[in-house]
């Protein structure tokens, strides 16, 4: 499984926010999409999940594009939004049922998996509740459960750690690691740089709609010419450099 983004130009209006973005997310790899507010992280993600249409360039999952084969494209992907989105009138159980239906999963197996996920995030006793009335953190957990239930080939995760308690953050990171071992690809946008440094294999640093630099952590250190630098140092250094020059 590979997600290939090639020369992507796009945004919400005629004026592009993203200017010529290219990177890849391969199976068994966690890619961190790093950038300031407004750098273009969410816009990139919106293009990947198909809410926006590229003005130029292409986004391909295993040879399938959204234009030519939307069902194949979408069936390979699970998404966790930055702000939880829930159906007002569905219970937690029905959210899970719906996810199983929509992805055409095996009912028995998927429910077994759902139960272990629900237990991990301490939601087992809330199956008959309307999650739309949950707190932000609990809604986010529902999003996580529904996404990881699908055993997708590609996970697209937007700012996953906001509002999660430390226990849930740890469990989410473990989940990402185990999915990675299974062979899934993960594209994750975040500001939490210390966590990203530890858990991502590859980094894409966005600034003002362009890729400032990309590579593994070692490669980033080489670019920054400091082998002791943390991701925060590199990120701040590179963006400030850009700001000063610009």
């Amino acid at each position: 499984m590979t997600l290939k983004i090639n020369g992507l130009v796009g945004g919400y209006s005629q004026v592009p926010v993203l200017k010529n973005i290219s990177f890849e997310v391969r199976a068994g790899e966690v890619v961190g999409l790093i950038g300031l507010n407004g750098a273009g992280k969410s816009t990139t993600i919106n293009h990947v999940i198909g809410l926006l249409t590229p003005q130029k360039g292409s986004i391909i999952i295993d040879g399938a594009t959204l234009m030519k084969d939307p069902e194949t494209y979408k069936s390979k992907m699970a998404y966790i939004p930055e702000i939880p989105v829930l159906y007002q009138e569905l219970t937690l159980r029905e959210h899970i049922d719906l996810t199983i239906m929509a992805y055409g999963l095996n009912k028995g197996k998927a429910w077994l998996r759902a139960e272990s996920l629900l237990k991990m995030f301490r939601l087992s006793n809330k199956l008959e509740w309307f999650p739309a009335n949950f707190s932000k953190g609990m809604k986010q957990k529902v999003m996580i459960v529904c996404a990881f239930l699908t055993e997708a080939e590609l996970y697209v995760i937007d700012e996953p750690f906001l509002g999660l308690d430390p226990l849930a953050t740890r469990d989410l990171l473990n989940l990402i690691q185990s999915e990675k071992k299974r062979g899934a690809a993960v594209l994750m946008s975040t500001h939490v740089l210390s966590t990203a440094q530890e858990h991502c294999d590859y980094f894409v640093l966005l600034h003002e709609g362009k890729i400032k630099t990309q590579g593994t952590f070692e490669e980033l250190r080489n670019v920054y010419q400091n082998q002791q630098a943390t991701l925060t140092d590199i990120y701040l250094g590179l963006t400030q450099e850009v700001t000063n020059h610009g």
Partner: protein
Amino acid sequence: MDNLWNVRLKKYQRVLLHYSRFVLNDHFVLALLFFVGGLGLGYSNFLRSLPNTLEWWSRPLMVVIFVLMLQMGSFVSLLDEPDTIFLLPLENKMFSFLKRAFTHSFFIALFFQSLSMLISIPFLQQGVHLRTAEIWLLWLTQLLLKAVYLGRFLIISYDVKVDKWWMKLSVEFIIPVSVMILTFYLSAFIALSLTLVSLVVMVYLIRKAAKKNVFRWKRMLQIENHRMMSLYRFINLFTDVPQVKGSVHRFKLLDAYLPKMKTSKDVFKFLYWRALVRKSEYSSLYLRLSVLGFVVLIFIPNIILAIILTMLFMYLVGFQLLPLYNDYDDIIFTHIYPLKKADRLANFRGVLRCLLLLTGVLLVAASVLATHALVETLGVAGTVLLMIVFLTGNFLTKYAVKNT
């Protein structure tokens, strides 16, 4: 605090003025004029037909009507959601704000109560044979009852202990009914004195509650939001109000009849039925129109009119349910799930057909109850089927294409 109230009131009146332009549109005013005119004519005819002796039902009728009249107009506090944060430091001054709110609510109520009093005077004189002095006493009693009614909101804005169903029942029902029975059967003067006593007790309770407790922000906000929502829902009949989102209720008993999880083909069927049953904006709309159609048709013996009304109600039900098709557009996952676009339309068509058929069955049943001849009832049934074919056919496809 006075200043704050004035600002709030101005803002509120601006909102009302803005929407009144939509509510009081030409068609509606014209229809209202006809309606009021017809009602007035009916009322005067009815008064003329009254015998000189007292009818057995006239006094109970007045008790019921005055108690119903009392329910008009609620407590207008004009509290707003952010107040719980921004007005928190002014907690101890909230009582003077509430007093302004009470005065405003009372003057609004004064107008409406007096207006309805004015309308009932002819019947009070000719139907119940009240003397002028008694009518004045009744008017005063009704106003004081309204003050007690509104005073309850001042108590519960401080005291959680009396915010109970029995308190609401006594203030809004038991006391008014007793007072009205006293007025019409015993003495208007005694009734007025009793109301005065309850008002004094009320004022005492309010002062006590406000001294001992803190202002109940959440509860008062809930009450105000509830009031604004019913206002918006009314306005929503005429124009779109952004605040009207409707509420969600589970109706657990109906869960057994909802579609179970199947394949990805039925995702939208799964969603649409749940939205219909649990989201009040759809369920209440559908039920109201269907029941209204049923009731109206029962009283229409003329078959041509019955068929026209059948067409009208089928069209209204179908047309008003169309927005359900786009109900899930705001939810990102609807676009992200690997689903076929055609399945959604097919699912919606099935759901709409089923609902229209149910309404149709009701309308045909009404036609039977209206004692139409067999051929005529078959005519109504045929109209129903034709309307279903029309509404769920090309008409729906065109709507779907236009709205995706």
